[in-house]
């Protein structure tokens, strides 16, 4: 079909754009970190810091070549793997080798990612369902008690910074009622093998994050539902004789929630890069904590670069997904 062709063309065009964007971003990130006045070769080199050792460190860390060369090695590593000094070797896809953690970065990322994904996905589902349902309830009870109560609830949740609400939830809910053994706080459980354990670990951090995000979605849903309800096509639907339930579900929400796809996609992608504060409070070893510790404590460049790249990849790819999803949702987009 012709429409299908158009869609394919649209998707492939977006895909190409995404790839180019990703390349530019990755080069930019390499240049930015190279430009910083911090020399990783000098770190952890307290006593015997002769120029020789610094040079050896630099070679060991792969910083003795130009930025573009470093970047190119990184790209090559992604496809062919890389060999480092002292017997360290990382098979493809290699994101580099961390001399601080004595591991291939790929492995570190592979361990951190499911944690971050769980957190992001759980929070995403929670805030979407909470935000949208409260938003719809508020819109349907516009100006009444339920409307005001829901908006104050989510606003208070949002105004309290996560580092306060998170710690309060840990101390006064999780530990107070012995819901989780404090030593197991943040332990990773595979959701497919041990769903209860997974839930124990992730429910509260997800709730903390969801609370922080829900307000945006409640307000967004509320105003979009109200605005859409006054659209002519909703009146048409009503004139057709459709029941209010069907109108809300099939007509109002479809149009009102379409714009949410965009912000939800971006918020979700942002979280995939790591929820730094929540991960810290709940002892989750996700990407956020990994990257922040890498910056503030060890200045572990391979980890910093990889997590940064990964985070932007999430954003860029999610943008692509959002665009494609939008093309499916809104037929008008497909044509343009």
């Amino acid at each position, binding site marked *: 079909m012709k429409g299908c062709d158009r869609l394919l063309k649209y998707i492939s065009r977006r895909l190409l754009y995404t790839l180019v964007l990703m390349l530019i971003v990755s080069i930019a990130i390499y240049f930015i970190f190279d430009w910083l006045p911090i020399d990783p070769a000098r770190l952890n080199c307290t006593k015997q810091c002769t120029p020789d050792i610094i040079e050896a460190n630099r070679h060991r860390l792969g910083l003795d070549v130009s930025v573009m060369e470093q970047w190119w090695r990184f790209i090559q590593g992604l496809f062919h793997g890389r060999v480092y000094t002292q017997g360290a070797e990382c098979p493809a896809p290699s994101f580099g080798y961390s001399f601080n953690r004595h591991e291939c970065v790929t492995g570190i990322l592979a361990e951190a990612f499911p944690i971050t994904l769980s957190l992001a996905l759980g929070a995403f589902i929670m805030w979407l369902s909470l935000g949208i349902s409260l938003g719809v309830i508020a819109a349907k009870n516009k100006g009444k008690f339920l409307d005001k109560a829901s908006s104050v609830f989510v606003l208070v949740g949002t105004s309290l910074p996560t580092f306060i609400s998170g710690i309060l939830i840990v101390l006064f809910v999780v530990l107070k009622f012995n819901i989780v053994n404090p030593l197991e706080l943040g332990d990773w459980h595979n959701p497919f093998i041990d769903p209860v354990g997974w839930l124990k670990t992730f429910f509260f951090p997800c709730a903390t994050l969801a609370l922080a995000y829900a307000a945006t979605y409640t307000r967004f849903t509320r105003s979009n539902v109200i605005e859409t309800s006054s659209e*002519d*096509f909703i009146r*048409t639907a*009503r*004139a*057709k*004789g459709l029941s209010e339930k069907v109108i809300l579900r099939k007509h109002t929400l479809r*149009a009102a929630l379409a714009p949410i796809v965009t912000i939800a996609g971006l918020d979700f992608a942002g979280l995939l890069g790591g929820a730094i504060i929540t991960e810290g409070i709940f002892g989750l070893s996700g990407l956020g904590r990994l990257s922040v510790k890498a910056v503030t404590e060890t200045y572990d460049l391979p980890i910093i670069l990889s997590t940064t790249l990964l985070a932007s990849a999430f954003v860029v790819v999610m943008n692509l997904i959002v665009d494609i999803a939008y093309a499916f949702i*809104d037929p008008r987009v497909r044509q343009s």
Partner: protein
Amino acid sequence: MSKFLEVKNLSVSFPTEDGVVLAANDISYSVDLGETLAIVGESGSGKSVTNLAVMGLHNPQRTQITGQAFINLESGPVDVISAPTEVVRRMRGKTMSMIFQDPMSALHPYYSVGDQIAEAWGLYNSGSKRDGFARAKEMLDLVGIPDVDKRVNEFPHQFSGGMRQRVMIAMALVNNPSLLIADEPTTALDVTVQSQILQLLGGLQKEFNMAIILITHDLGVVAEVADRVCVMYGGRIVENASIDETFYNPLQPYTVGLLNSIPRVDKLGSHRLSAIPGQPPSLINLPRGCAFEPRCQFASSVAGNLCKTTNPNLDEKSTDHFARCHLSTTQLHQLLAKNESGAK
């Protein structure tokens, strides 16, 4: 024998921050199957508000509706104003349908036209989605859309304005309604397309033996299709007569003004187009007297301050011709004649 739709003393008002807006005030009219009633007036005169009330499309929490509107079905008359909302909902689309002014915004942008028509059909017919689409194609064909096999899967934005309105009509008629309320169906369209749509409506009316209420501000449109005309002003009906009476023997200065404001081939050259001076009245604090009084060129001709103090009744000035004016038929005729000679 009562007519198919009989609206009796219908009033619609909205409470707002500035006070109660009396948008439609004591409206009565009727229309029968196979008949076309035109409701004419400026925007804000209450013509849409009245018919939305008949359709039950007002938000009950923000609207006060009094009066009655009977639909005389074979099973007996139903007052759509007092009937439970669920009963009225089940009449929408099936017994009565409505089409709107802007066909772009009135169609859901995310669903194909076939989808939207099939949805309306499926509401009152048991059948698969495929049956719905088959019926949609039938209807699209009926309203004169070419290449329906392809177009049934297209989306509203892929249609031109006139085509969209045809889609709207197809959707409104998919369940063979007895009453069609067309709210300014041609206002947003080109003149050439306008008459096509009107012809289409006329043809379909004959085919389905529908009652049509045509809401418009355009008397030219009215002349083309209507059997009877209600003129509304300030939330009230000011004149209610057959098409011929309205055009050739208007008995209300506002109607006269409206007629003078349209170009007419038969009076070309001798006739000067004239707009009605002034602004429509606020519907919040309607004057005690005639709503049209501030703009009426003949108000001063009425003895005493009658126009300012008393609102005229909707009197039957001649057989089956109702008008709301303190001037008698003869007085008005005299004044009009004087005006005409003066103009010359």
